[in-house]
C-alpha cells in the first residue's frame, strides 16, 4: 500500500452497473400482495436484494472497501417482524474502524387502497459498542404491520481492504431476486470459496478504472521545479457478478451441527497483493503457500521452536524413556493436566506458549503448539495439524481463514496419533467433538503439508450386559453393566465429570419411572484413556403388562427406545453423528416361576448399503430364561443425505422391533397353549 500513498484518489467509473430496482419505486401490487407466490406459509420474503462491493482509493491510506446493500422485504405475518430490524457488526482495530453510512429506509403500507410511505429517521437508528473490537449498528423500520413492504439501503465502509466478509447468498426466508456484484482492483487478488448446496454461477468481467492524482515532486534534479504535479494511473477492475432468482429459504434440519455450514455463501480469500512496480505480496494460493504463511506468523512457527520454558519438566517426564508411545502419552497428559483452556479458538497463540505455560491457561494455539514443541523436543516426529471446527465450515480449498483450530500429530512407524490437550477428557487419538470436522492439514517440520482425515474410524461403543429377573407380580430386578468406550466415555465424562454420584443416580432414577437403584459402582471414570464401566443393581415396578393369565413385555424393558429420531420423509443435508458408534445389548432374562413362553418376537436384522449401518436382533429361549443380543451401529461419522431414506427405515424398524412383545402364559391355565416362537 505504501507504494501509492501519495496518490489523491479520484475514482471514476464506479457505479457503471446500474440497478434495475430504484429505491422508493415500490409497486402497489407488491404492497397489496397477501401471500408469497412460491411458498404460501412464509413469514416474510426478500423481494429484491442488491449487494455491491467495490474499492475506492483514499489519499494516504490506499484502497478502502465499500459495501452497498439494498434490500426490499415483504412482511406477511407477525413472525416476519423480526426482519424489520437490521443489524451490522462493524469491526475496528486500533485506529481503523468500519463505519455505516447513507442509511435510507422506508416502510410502505396500503392505506385505503393507496400506498403510504413512512421514512426511517435518525431516531430509529442505534449504535452500540459491543466490546473493544465490535460496534453494532442497528435500525428498525417504522410502522411495520402484516403486509408491509420495507426497503432500506446503506453503505458499510471498511479500511480493511484485504478482507471481504462472507457474502451470504441464502437467508432463512426466500429471496425472489438478488444480484451481488464484487469489483476488485487488479492489484488485490482474491479467490472465491463457495459454500452450501445452491449452485453459484458467477460471471466474470473486467473494466477499466483510472486514478487521477497529484503528487509532490521532490525536485531531485532541480530545486526550482519542486511542486505538485498531476498524473493518472489506469488500472483494471475485475468484476464478479451473481444473479439469482427464487433462492429457497434455508430450512433447519435435525442432526446438523450448525445450519450455517449449509447456508449458501461465498467467501473471498486473499491470494496476493501486487501494486505497480512493486513485488508481489503473497497470502495464499496453494496449500504449501497457505502453510508457509501460517508458519511465518510469529505466533505459530516461532512458538514451535521455543523450548526453554519446559525443559525441566520435560526432563522429569520423559528423561531416559525410549518408547515413543510412552513418551507421547506422558507429555500429552502433562500438558492436558497442567493447562486450562480459556475457551478461545485459533491456530496461533494468544499470549505465547511461554507465558501460557507459566500461567497455566491459554487458547487452543497456546496449548497445542506447546504440546507439539514438547513432543519434538522429546525426539518425536510431531506436527501441528490445522483444522476447522464443526461450527466453522469445511475448508476444501487452500485458505488461511478456513482454519481456526490446531491439534498435534505424532507420526510413528505404525501410523499416527492425533492429540488435543485443551479438554480434560480427551486422550491420544481422541479429539474433542468440536474438532471432528472432515479434514485437517498436517504440517511437517520442512514446511510441507498434507491432508488427513480427523474423523475417528473405530466406533465408539456402549455395551450393556443385563440380567433381568421377572416376577409374576410385575416386579423386575436386575443388574446392568455398561461399558463406555472412546467418545461414549468422553461424552460421559464431559456430562457427568463434576456431578456428585448421588445426583447422577437421582437423575438416572428419574429417567426411568419406577426405578430404584440398589447399588452402584463406577470404574475408570477418571482414568482418561480407559473405558468407563458402571454397574447398576436395580428394582423396577410394573414395566410389564399383566392380564389374566398372561404377561406381556418388550424384552429390552427400560433400555428400549420408542421414538424414531428421523421424522421427516426426506432430507437435503448429511446426517452428522460426529463419530461412528455402536450400541450393543447382551440380555439374559430369567422368567417367573409358573409361566412359560407363549410367543417371542422374531429375530431380525437389517443392513444399510455400503455398510453405512445396521441392526441385528436375536432372541431365543434357553431353559427357563431368554437370551438376546441386540446391536445397532452407524459406521460413518457423517452419513450422506442419499442414505437418508434407508437410515430412517433402519431406525423405524429398530424401534418397532424393540416394541414387539414377549408373551408368557401361566402354566396349566386352560390348555390354550400355542407354539413357541414367532409367526408371520
Amino acid at each position: 500500500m505504501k507504494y501509492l500513498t501519495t496518490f489523491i484518489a479520484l475514482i471514476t467509473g464506479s457505479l457503471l452497473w446500474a440497478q434495475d430496482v430504484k429505491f422508493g419505486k415500490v409497486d402497489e401490487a407488491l404492497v397489496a400482495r397477501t401471500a408469497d407466490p412460491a411458498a404460501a406459509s412464509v413469514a416474510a420474503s426478500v423481494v429484491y436484494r442488491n449487494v455491491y462491493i467495490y474499492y475506492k482509493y483514499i489519499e494516504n491510506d490506499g484502497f478502502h472497501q465499500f459495501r452497498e446493500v439494498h434490500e426490499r422485504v415483504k412482511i406477511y405475518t407477525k413472525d416476519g417482524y423480526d426482519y424489520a430490524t437490521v443489524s451490522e457488526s462493524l469491526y475496528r482495530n486500533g485506529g481503523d474502524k468500519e463505519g455505516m453510512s447513507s442509511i435510507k429506509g422506508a416502510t410502505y403500507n396500503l392505506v385505503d387502497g393507496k400506498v403510504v410511505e413512512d421514512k426511517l429517521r435518525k431516531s430509529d437508528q442505534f449504535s452500540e459498542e459491543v466490546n473493544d473490537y465490535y460496534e453494532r449498528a442497528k435500525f428498525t423500520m417504522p410502522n411495520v404491520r402484516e403486509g408491509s413492504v420495507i426497503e432500506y439501503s446503506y453503505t458499510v465502509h471498511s479500511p480493511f481492504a484485504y478482507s471481504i466478509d462472507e457474502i451470504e447468498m441464502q437467508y432463512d426466508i426466500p429471496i425472489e431476486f438478488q444480484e451481488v456484484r464484487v469489483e476488485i482492483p487488479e492489484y488485490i487478488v482474491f479467490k472465491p470459496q463457495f459454500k452450501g448446496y445452491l449452485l453459484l454461477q458467477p460471471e466474470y468481467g473486467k473494466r477499466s478504472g483510472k486514478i487521477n492524482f497529484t503528487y509532490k515532486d521532490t525536485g531531485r534534479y532541480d530545486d526550482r521545479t519542486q511542486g505538485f504535479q498531476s498524473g493518472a494511473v489506469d488500472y483494471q477492475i475485475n468484476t464478479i457478478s451473481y444473479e439469482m432468482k427464487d433462492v429457497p429459504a434455508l430450512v433447519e434440519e435435525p442432526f446438523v451441527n450448525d445450519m450455517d455450514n449449509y447456508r449458501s455463501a461465498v467467501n473471498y480469500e486473499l491470494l496476493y497483493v501486487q501494486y505497480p512496480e512493486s513485488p508481489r505480496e503473497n497470502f495464499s494460493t496453494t496449500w504449501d503457500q497457505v502453510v508457509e504463511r501460517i508458519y511465518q506468523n510469529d505466533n505459530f512457527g516461532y512458538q514451535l521452536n521455543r523450548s526453554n520454558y519446559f525443559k525441566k519438566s520435560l526432563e522429569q517426564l520423559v528423561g531416559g524413556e525410549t518408547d515413543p508411545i510412552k513418551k507421547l502419552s506422558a507429555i500429552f497428559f502433562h500438558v492436558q493436566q497442567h493447562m486450562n483452556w480459556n475457551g478461545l479458538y485459533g491456530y496461533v497463540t494468544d499470549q505465547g506458549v511461554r507465558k501460557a505455560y507459566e500461567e497455566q491457561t491459554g487458547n487452543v494455539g497456546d496449548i497445542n503448539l506447546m504440546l507439539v514443541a514438547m513432543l519434538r523436543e522429546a525426539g518425536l516426529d510431531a506436527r501441528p495439524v490445522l483444522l476447522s471446527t464443526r461450527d466453522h465450515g469445511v475448508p476444501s480449498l487452500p485458505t488461511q481463514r478456513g482454519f481456526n483450530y490446531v491439534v498435534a500429530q505424532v507420526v510413528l512407524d505404525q501410523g499416527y496419533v492425533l492429540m488435543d490437550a485443551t479438554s480434560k477428557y480427551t486422550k491420544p487419538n481422541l479429539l474433542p467433538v468440536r474438532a471432528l470436522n472432515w479434514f485437517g492439514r498436517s504440517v511437517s517440520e520442512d514446511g510441507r503439508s498434507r491432508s488427513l482425515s480427523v474423523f475417528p474410524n473405530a466406533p465408539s461403543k456402549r455395551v450393556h450386559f443385563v440380567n433381568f429377573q421377572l416376577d409374576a407380580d410385575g416386579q423386575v430386578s436386575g443388574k446392568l453393566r455398561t461399558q463406555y468406550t472412546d467418545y461414549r466415555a468422553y461424552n460421559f465424562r464431559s456430562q457427568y465429570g463434576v456431578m456428585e454420584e448421588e445426583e447422577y443416580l437421582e437423575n438416572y432414577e428419574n429417567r426411568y419411572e419406577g426405578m430404584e437403584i440398589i447399588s452402584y459402582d463406577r470404574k475408570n471414570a477418571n482414568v482418561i484413556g480407559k473405558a468407563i464401566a458402571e454397574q447398576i443393581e436395580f428394582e423396577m415396578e410394573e414395566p410389564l403388562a399383566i392380564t389374566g393369565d398372561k404377561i406381556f413385555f418388550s424384552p429390552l424393558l427400560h433400555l428400549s427406545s420408542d421414538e424414531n429420531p428421523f421424522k421427516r420423509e426426506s432430507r437435503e443435508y448429511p446426517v452428522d453423528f460426529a463419530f461412528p458408534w455402536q450400541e450393543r445389548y447382551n440380555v439374559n432374562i430369567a422368567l417367573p416361576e409358573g409361566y412359560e413362553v407363549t410367543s417371542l418376537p422374531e429375530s431380525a436384522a437389517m443392513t444399510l448399503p455400503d455398510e453405512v449401518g445396521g441392526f441385528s436382533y436375536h432372541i431365543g429361549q434357553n431353559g427357563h430364561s431368554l437370551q438376546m443380543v441386540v446391536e445397532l451401529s452407524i459406521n460413518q461419522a457423517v452419513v450422506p443425505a442419499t442414505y437418508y431414506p434407508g437410515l430412517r427405515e433402519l431406525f423405524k424398524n429398530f424401534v418397532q422391533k424393540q416394541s414387539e412383545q414377549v408373551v408368557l402364559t401361566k402354566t396349566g391355565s386352560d390348555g390354550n397353549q400355542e407354539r413357541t416362537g414367532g409367526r408371520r
Partner: protein
Amino acid sequence: MNRIFTFLPGIFLLFASLGQAQESRYQAVLIPDDLKAQADAVVRYEKMTVKLRDLFRMEVDMERAVTVFNSRGDRHARAVVGYNDSRKIRDIEAVEYDAMGRENRKFRQRDFMDVSAVDGGTLYSDSRSLYLDHTPVSYPYTLVVRYTVENENTAPLPNWYFLSGYRVSTQESHFELRYDRPDLVPEVREVLLEGYEIEKETFFNGFRYSGRNIPAMRDESMSPPFSEVVPKVMVRPLHFGYEGIEGQVDTWEDVGRWMYTHMLQGRDALPESTRNEVLHLVADTRDTLERARRIYRYVQENTRYISVQVGIGGIRPISALEVDRVKYGDCKGLSNYTRALLSAVGVPSYYVHVEAGSYKSDFEPGFADLSQGNHVILAIPQGGKLHWVDCTSQTIPFGFLGDFTDDRLVHLIDENGGRLVRTPSYKGLQNGQVTRARLALSAEGALQGEVEIRATGTQYDSQYGLEDLGAIDQLSYYRRRWGYLENLEVSGLAYENDKDAVQFTQRMDIETGQYAKKAGDRLLFAPNALNRLNLVPDRHRDRKLPFMVQRGFEDQEAYEIALPKGYRPEALPGETAFETPFGHYRLQVSYEPESHSVSYQRKVLLQAGEYAPDQYDAYRDFCRKISRSDRLQMILIESDTTK
C-alpha cells in the same frame, strides 16, 4: 418474545473494601464440612456497604470472596458488574488464590472486559457491564472481587440475599447501610431469617446484618423460585432521587401518584389524524367494552414490540406521539399509547405495573417500592369489573392474560394515585382440553382417523400460536407432540380461534405407521393414543422445600377406536378411578360389539395448590398412577386364524 424490561437497571452483585485481608484465610481446607455439603462453591466472605450520601448520591462498596470446588461452581465466582450513565464503577479489582490460600493472580480494572449488556429482545439499551473472563487453573480456588459503585439514583436500594443461589453456601455475609441524612432512613423488611445465624446491629446512622454458616440449598422440582425461599433483607427508600427527580413515597398510592406525575402525565397526546381514525373506528357503538376491544385490535394490528431502554426510559414510557409515528414500543410505550387511544374514545384505563413470568409473583402489600415489577399491562374498568390487556402481544385475546401475568398482586396507576389489585386466575377446570377422536386400527397395527382438540385457559395460551406457524412447522409440532406415533401424517388441518370465548380448536385427520405392537397372534396397544400425560416430577429423597401446582388443568378424552376385522379384544383396561387432594382421574374403556369398536373415556383434573414438603411423595404417586393408567394397553387376539 421477551417482553420484560428491567424496571430500574442495575445488577446488585455487591461488596466493601476490607483493609488488608489476611489471605491465608482463603485456604479451602478451613471450610467447615456442613458448608461443603451439596455445595459447588462457598461464599467465604462478602460485605456490601451502602452509603446514602444525599438524595442523588449513593456509594456502594462490595467485597466478595468465593471458594469454588468444581466447574459447576464457577458461576458463583463470576465477577460481573453492571453500569450505565448514572451508575459508575470505581476501583474494581479481583484476586485469585489457590487451594492453600496463596495469591495466584491479580486482575486490575483493565483486565476486565467492557461489554454491552443488551439482551436479545432489546434493540438498544445503555446498560453495560464489566466482567472478568477468568479461566480457573485448578480447583478449589478462591476469587475475591472488590469494587465501588457510585450511583446518582437512590432508588432502588439493594436487597440482600444471605445465599447467592442453589448449591452455594455462605460462611460470612454482611450487609451494611449508612445514611448521611436522617430523611434518607429506609424501611427494612426481614424475610425468612428465622433459624439462621443472622444478627442485626444498629448504629445511630445505619445498621448492619451479619449472617454466618448458612448451608447450601438444593434446587427441587416445583419449588417456589429461589428468591422466595432464601433468607433475605428487603430495603425500600421512603425518600429518594431517581434520574434527577425527587420522590417521597410511603404507600402504593404514593408510588402511583409519583409515577403518574413524573412518568405518565402529558405523554398521552395523539396526532389529530390518529384521534380521528380511532373515533371513526368506534363511531357506531356506545358500548365501552366494544370500544375497548376495537382499540385493542387496532393496536394489535398496527404495532409491534421493540425495546429501547435509556436512562429514565427504564421506567418512563416513550410518548404516545412517538409510538404513533414508528408503530413500535416496549411494554411501557405500547401500554401508554393504548391508554391514550382508549382515552381518546372515552374509555378510562389504568396503567398497571406487574411482575410478569410464569411464576406468580405478588407486589408486596405495605412495602411500596419502585423496584417491583418488570412489565406493564392495562386494566379497563367496566361494569364493576376490570378487563385486562397486554399490549405487547399482537395475538392474545382481549381480556385474557394467560400465564404471564395471571393471579398476582399488581399495581394499578392512574391520575388519582395507585393501589394493589389481583389479576384474574386460571386454575384447574378453567384450563381445559377436550380431545375427541374417531379412529380405526388396522390389522397391521396402523391407526387412522379424525381428531378434534379444544383448548381453553392456559392450554389455549400454549396452543393458539400454532395457527401462525408455517405448514412444515405445524407438522413437526404434531410429530413432536406425538413422538411415539411412527410415520405420523397429518392432513386436513383446520384451526378455529375463538378469541371471545378464549377457545382454540384443532381439527385434523391423522394416519400413523405401525402403532399396535405385535406379539404372536396378538396385537397390543394403548387406546390413549393422543394424550398420555407424564407429570411425574423428579424424585427427591429428602425433600426440603414446599412445592406448588401453580395452575393445574383438566383434560378429557373421548375416543372411539374401530378394531380390525379378525381380531377380538382379549383384555381391556376396564375402569379405573382415583381421587386425591391434588385432583382426580377417571378412566372407562369398553368394547361395543355392534360397531366392533372400543370406547375410551378418560378425565384428569389437576388442582392448583401449595403443599408442604411431606406431601411430595403422595403427589408423585398420584402422577405416577396417572402416567401408568394413561399407558395401559389393551390386547387383541386373532379370532379367526384363517382370516
